[in-house]
């Protein structure tokens, strides 16, 4: 190796990232070359200063608590761990029937609630972390093809700028254990998130309103697709938007 090649390797040398053969060659060169020795000393001095002053930050306790709490909520919403032995242990037909009955009632209700919570969480997170869209465009012909190959269904994407609800973009999100399409519309300063996923049943349902933590949500099923729309927009205007979307 010549002087220039060695100069290039001095950082890797100081970082102990080189094999023995190269290390020997560089040490030999360092004994002879003042310039390289000076550079190597500078690197070590810098590393020394960095290590001495320990400038690393540590995660605040508040962040640690928030993350643990968020993970618990997430785990609760997405994971339902039923212990299978319980089902077998019940044995008696009556207990089994009762169990099945209770199971379906509570599971349906809690799944519904859990999804509403997830929709709200997704919406809030999309605004908080400023990760509103993966593809920012008001052009439906840009947004729709972006989802090709990212999800296994093709969502309807329309821009309603003419009616005062311009399309802002789209992103991938995660709902009820599945990857879903999130379309973002904007009404004045109010973002609207629309989550779209293939429906589990086949029957259509008309938009139903619910409120959660100050947000208005609409949920409906149409032509095999399930829709969730959420915003802090007032109910009347959101209803107007839903009418366009569910037309």
């Amino acid at each position, binding site marked *: 190796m010549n002087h220039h090649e060695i100069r290039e390797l001095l950082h890797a040398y100081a970082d102990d990232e080189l094999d023995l053969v190269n290390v020997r060659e560089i040490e030999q060169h360092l004994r002879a070359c003042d310039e390289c020795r000076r550079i190597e000393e500078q690197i070590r001095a*810098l590393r020394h200063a960095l290590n001495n002053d320990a400038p690393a*930050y540590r995660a605040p306790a508040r962040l640690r608590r928030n993350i643990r709490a968020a993970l618990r909520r997430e785990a609760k919403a997405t994971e339902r761990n039923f212990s299978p032995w319980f089902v077998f242990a019940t044995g008696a037909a009556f207990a089994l029937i009762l169990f099945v009955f209770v199971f379906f009632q509570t599971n349906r209700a809690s799944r519904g609630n859990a999804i509403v919570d997830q929709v709200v969480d997704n919406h809030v997170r999309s605004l908080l972390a400023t990760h509103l869209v993966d593809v920012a465009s008001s052009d439906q012909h840009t947004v729709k093809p972006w989802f090709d190959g990212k999800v296994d269904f093709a969502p309807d994407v329309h821009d309603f700028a003419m009616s005062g609800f311009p399309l802002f973009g789209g992103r991938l999100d995660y709902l009820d254990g599945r990857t879903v399409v999130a379309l973002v519309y904007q009404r004045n300063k109010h973002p609207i998130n629309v989550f779209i996923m293939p429906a589990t049943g086949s029957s259509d349902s008309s938009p139903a309103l619910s409120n959660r933590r100050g947000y208005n949500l609409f949920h409906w099923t149409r032509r095999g697709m399930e829709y969730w729309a959420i915003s802090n927009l007032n109910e009347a205007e959101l209803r107007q938007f839903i009418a366009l979307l569910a037309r």
Partner: protein
Amino acid sequence: MFRLTESPRLSEFERKVLPHLDAAYNLARFLMRNEQDAEDVVQEAALRAFRFFDDFRGENSRAWFLRIVRNTSFTVLKKNRPDETNIAFDEELHGGQTPPMDAGVALDRAQDRQSVRAAIEQLPPEFREAITLRELEEASYKEIADIAGVPIGTVMSRLARARRQLQLILSQTK
């Protein structure tokens, strides 16, 4: 009643990934350069990591988690502060200059923690990332390459350029 009190997936995640929370915060803090954004990014990254935890097959959970943290950070940086993610600009600013002869001597006098942090924050984001991972987290070149998604050769040249700029900045603050 029918749910186990603690999800096994969650406890495995907490055991494997959460020990790297300090490293994650440190990286995000230097990339985002303020507390609030760093906390938002780490929280978002932790949730993402948990959602994609089933995809994690590797041995190195630190590199896996830090990659998610750095990607989340850069997404936010590119969206909110596109002018900061331009290396060429900073190279023009500091490029060409080499540290003065006595740079090493100047550094021997102990720098205080704040000025070292401030100096690192003046580097372009890719250089901040390389320095933080190498000097503060003691990651190997291979790990840094995995986290940043670039070849090892790029890691080497980023570190070299980052250190040169850092020496220059620190010798000027003296």
